[in-house]
């Protein structure tokens, strides 16, 4: 059985290789091939899943050792896979959602002449992501980690001719690199601490080392997670990443890749359990980010950016949960999965809307679309209900559990984190309702439209071409796009319930992540009630603001906070001023230094020798008598020196 694991990775990898090297002749079949291989990988995953269910809870872990990768004196890095429940969860999520999005893209990218390459990149991403979750040691995980980074770079910048896209891609990669620094330092620390960085040995040996080391490792891992999962302070890239085609945003920047940070932390649970300080930092980061993302989400008029903010915030929830330790791990993953469903669905919906609206992304130019694209409306709506945590839908279960867990952490921390989580829920309800209303309800603002507001650069390429001139004719998307949306809608409706009945999911994961219930100061019912209340408040506020009065086509100036939020709470400006500008000055001055100082010293020496030469030359003045003088002086000195030598 375990030999199948490699197949999981191999299939999409093969696809990537073939599609990227294949050349034009594959253009016609490329997308089918890519989708097929993604599906194949899913099938293999399913088979393995079935097999795994067939075995007892404790011996479900499979492992496959492929080959010894970097064998060096005292340093052993292998290419080996490990498939346990946690990995399996991800495998299914990745391949499943991945396949759906492949299918979706067939329709979405129909008119792009580089579609083949697009599918190649998608396959590359799947492969890398699978390596990430299947690796049995941190170094191999690092390979997948950077691999998905590369894929995301390529896909964000897929429309390279747009400078904005290229820049966004570069930014994503760079910010992630900062995170990767953390990961590599963490690995080095593990190597010097445990002499290895394979999951098994490391996670078992955590007891044998000092808490300080563990904390250091934990914090480095957190840094990595922040980079990949767009957590404060490394979140700035996610918003720009929306420059990529929508399926990409759905798959990479909502469902799978951005959640890798959560996987990393949960996977390294043993380390964090040994380092409470690190855990605290994790929860704080999570809490801050969930508010940050939510606030940003409220202010964006670009539908994808709004969803991106929401993604940030939802992942904030997961990180928060993961920071809670054994209390939260399970729920973190559970929310991760449900979020995978509904957020992917939402993005696909957004994509479908844009598809029907000439790639317009500004929600202020939407409105009343429900009757033009019913399927999209329904699926998007369900996703909406799921994310705000409408009772019975997936989001309700998963998020509720996290809030409970947050309180269950106990002490002041518990209260603070819990209430932050609640507040987050309220804001979520608010901005998602806003999105919903602005898009599907209200007057049809895309008719007799005014010129686009300058401060909202429309993202997709076509916007420049015909966005301004002829008004769009909203229409439902082709079946290849709607079917995935429907499937995901199902997931977002039922997944949560399915997982929670009889704590299925908890029992499934427990062998890997362990679980304890903690002791919540509030009863589950109370928490649920509170959640309901804040939810209603949020929805109501949004309705009052956007449902009752008409939405202006050009964004009003808005309050200070709004304006700040539109600019990602000025965090980008900070980066620009401090890092970019500062960096530019640093490099420029260094170039100067290199030229004048380092080079100057050498050239200066040469020049001075030359000058000396010029002066000495003058002594050769052509007069025989002066030569005689120098000889005479010379011999005089010679004699004097000789006598002196004898004297001393």
């Amino acid at each position, binding site marked *: 059985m375990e030999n199948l694991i490699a197949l999981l990775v191999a299939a999409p990898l093969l696809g990537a290789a073939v599609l990227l090297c294949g050349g034009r002749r594959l253009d016609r079949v490329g997308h089918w091939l890519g989708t097929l291989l993604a599906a194949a990988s899913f099938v293999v995953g399913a088979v393995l899943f079935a097999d795994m269910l067939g075995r007892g809870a404790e011996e479900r872990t499979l492992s496959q050792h492929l080959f010894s990768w970097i064998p*060096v004196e005292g*340093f052993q890095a292998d290419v080996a896979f490990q498939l346990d429940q946690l990995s399996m969860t991800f495998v299914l999520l990745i391949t499943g959602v991945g396949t759906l999005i492949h299918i979706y893209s067939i329709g979405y990218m129909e008119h792009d002449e580089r579609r083949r390459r697009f599918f190649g990149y998608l396959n590359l991403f799947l492969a890398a992501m699978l390596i990430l979750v299947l690796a049995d040691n941190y170094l191999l995980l690092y390979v997948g980690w950077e691999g998905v980074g*590369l894929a995301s770079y390529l896909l964000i910048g897929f429309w390279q001719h747009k400078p904005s896209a290229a820049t966004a891609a570069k930014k994503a990669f760079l910010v992630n690199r900062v995170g990767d620094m953390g990961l590599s330092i963490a690995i080095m620390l593990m190597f010097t601490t445990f002499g*290895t960085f394979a999951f098994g040995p490391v996670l078992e040996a955590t007891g044998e080392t000092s808490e300080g080391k563990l904390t250091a490792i934990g914090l480095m891992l957190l840094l990595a997670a922040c980079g990949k999962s767009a957590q404060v302070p490394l979140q700035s890239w996610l918003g720009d990443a929306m420059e990529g085609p929508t399926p990409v945003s759905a798959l990479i920047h909502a469902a799978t890749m951005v959640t890798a940070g959560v996987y990393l932390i949960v996977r390294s649970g043993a380390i964090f359990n040994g380092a409470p300080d690190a855990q605290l930092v994790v929860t704080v980061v999570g809490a801050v980010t969930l508010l940050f993302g939510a606030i940003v989400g409220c202010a964006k008029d670009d539908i994808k950016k709004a969803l991106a903010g929401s993604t940030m915030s939802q992942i904030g929830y997961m990180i928060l949960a993961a920071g809670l330790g054994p209390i939260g791990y399970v729920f973190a993953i559970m929310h991760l999965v449900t979020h995978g469903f509904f957020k992917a669905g939402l993005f696909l919906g957004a994509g479908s809307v844009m598809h029907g609206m000439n790639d317009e992304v500004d929600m202020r130019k939407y409105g009343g679309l429900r009757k033009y694209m019913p399927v999209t409306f329904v699926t998007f709506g369900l996703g909406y209900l799921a994310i705000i945590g409408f009772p019975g839908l997936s989001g309700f279960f998963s998020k509720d559990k996290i809030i409970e867990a947050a309180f269950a952490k106990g002490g002041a921390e518990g209260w603070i984190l819990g209430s932050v989580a609640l507040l987050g829920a309220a804001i979520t309800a608010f901005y998602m309702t806003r999105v919903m209303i602005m898009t599907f309800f209200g007057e049809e603002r895309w008719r007799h439209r005014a010129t686009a507001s300058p401060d909202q650069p429309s993202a997709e390429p076509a916007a420049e071409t015909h966005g301004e001139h002829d008004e769009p004719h909203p229409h439902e998307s082709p079946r290849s796009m709607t079917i995935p949306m429907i499937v995901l809608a199902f997931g977002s409706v039922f997944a949560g319930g399915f997982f929670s009945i009889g704590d299925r999911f908890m029992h499934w994961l427990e062998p890997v992540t362990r679980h304890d219930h903690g002791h919540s100061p509030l009863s589950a019912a109370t928490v649920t009630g509170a959640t309901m209340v804040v939810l209603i408040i949020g929805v109501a506020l949004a309705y009052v603001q956007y449902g009752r009065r008409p939405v202006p086509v050009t964004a009003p100036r808005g309050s200070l906070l709004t304006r700040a939020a539109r600019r990602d709470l000025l965090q980008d400006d900070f980066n620009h001023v401090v890092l970019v500008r500062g960096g530019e000055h640093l490099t420029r001055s260094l170039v100067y230094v290199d030229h004048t100082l380092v080079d100057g010293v050498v050239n200066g020496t040469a020049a001075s020798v030359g000058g000396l030469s010029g002066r000495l030359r003058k002594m050769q003045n052509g007069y025989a008598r002066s030569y005689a003088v120098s000889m005479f002086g010379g011999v005089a000195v010679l004699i004097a020196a000789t006598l002196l030598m004898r004297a001393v």
Partner: protein
Amino acid sequence: MSFPLLTATAVLPAVGAIATAAVPAARRTAAKWLALLVSLATLALAVTVLVRFDPDGARYQLTESRSWIAEFGVRYELGVDGIGVALIALTALLIPFIVLAGWHDADPLETKSSRWRPTQGFFALILAVEAMVIISFAATDVFLFYIFFEAMLIPMYFLIGGFGDRAHSGTDENASAQRSYAAVKFLLYNLVGGLIMLAAVIGLYVVAGNFSLQEITEARANGTLEMATSTERWLFLGFFFAFAVKAPLWPLHTWLPNAMGESTAPVAVLITAVVDKVGTFAMLRFCLGLFPEASKWATPVILVLALISIVYGALLAVGQRDIKRLVAYASISHFGFIILGIFAMTSQGQSGATLYMVNHGLSTAALMLVAGFLISRRGSRLIADYGGVQKVAPVLAGTFLIGGLATLSLPGLAPFVSEFLVLVGAFARYPVVGIIATIGIVLAALYTLVLYQRTMTGPVKPEVSAMPDLRARELLVVAPLIALLIGLGVYPKPLTDLVNPAVKHTMSDVQQKDPKPDVEAAK
């Protein structure tokens, strides 16, 4: 004594050089083919060396030893350990690509007097350099090494000064003046280094009485050869200075950007991927082998310099306007890593450093050669003159990107393996150093991606709109390199197996043990 394989490997290109130079002026193409064939034959010989070499056998194999200049206690002693084999293989591997890539670089612009034969000269010089480099990788006699270490400057000098890049650098139209400046700078820097080394070589003779690396190392090991601490340090400094210039290590690096900027891309590759490796190689073999104590004594300073090189080189790469100068500064940063790995004095660090020499050779070759193809199309080295190339020449852009990703050592590509090993090795002994060095990772991503973005993406510039994609010859150059980069990235085991024993020997030379992990240390 059996068939002198190493000598043959070195002599073949030398003979080829003479033959190529002798080809009459009119038969330019013939000269090119001759050079290509010779380089391929050399590659074949190098492969046989690789095959005949048994990693777990004696430290130095395929040894040859003849009396040469008894008066100076100099013997013609060749012998390779794993490191030498790897680098000889790298050299022999790269030269054919360099020849192929430089196919048209030396075609005379207008037919001058029939005596003037630039093409023949160009390829002859390349082969001459190959021969000298191979000898210096194989030499186990300090004097023999020194001779070729110095002598290879001359052909390199003519390659840089005589066959400059025809693309204008934008800073100054007077290209030939700049070129000869670069060539002279290259020569003088290295000559000064070499002469200072000469003093040390003489000193070594006065102390040791012969030049045989093995003898001296053994004598030092078993105490029959005492060296006063101060003497050893001075000699070490003399050697290290020369190697640091060649490598190049901050602040002795400034010749490299000029040299690489002004020379044609293949020559630039020759400089940074092949010739400079002799410097780092020599640090590993001679500095550590002959002067272990002094090496340990100097380590702190050298590590700091290496760190400076890493960060400084990367930052300057970010600040460059000229593609080739950018690559040059990137190389400076990479050489920082190599030296860091060597002087971290851990198995991982030194294995990593050795792998790094090979991988950096491959990655720079890939990046620089593609850059050369790009430049030859547009006739400009300025980044600002490009834009949107990806649209018109996707394959070129793709290969360029892969070269770049290799340069920023993306996992899955060969350089990652070596870079990570170096970092781990450094971290194991000097955590702070390791952490600072990781900054290099981020900066590498920065300059590579900025370069790619500015040249390849964005709206298509009118000047590049008609740019043809890679031709068959060019693809033939790049594809194998990329294949190797991926292959060695996924499965570097053959290389590590080759290198590990040699590294073990070096570690024992310097009497260093790897630091134990805490957990084991605790037990």
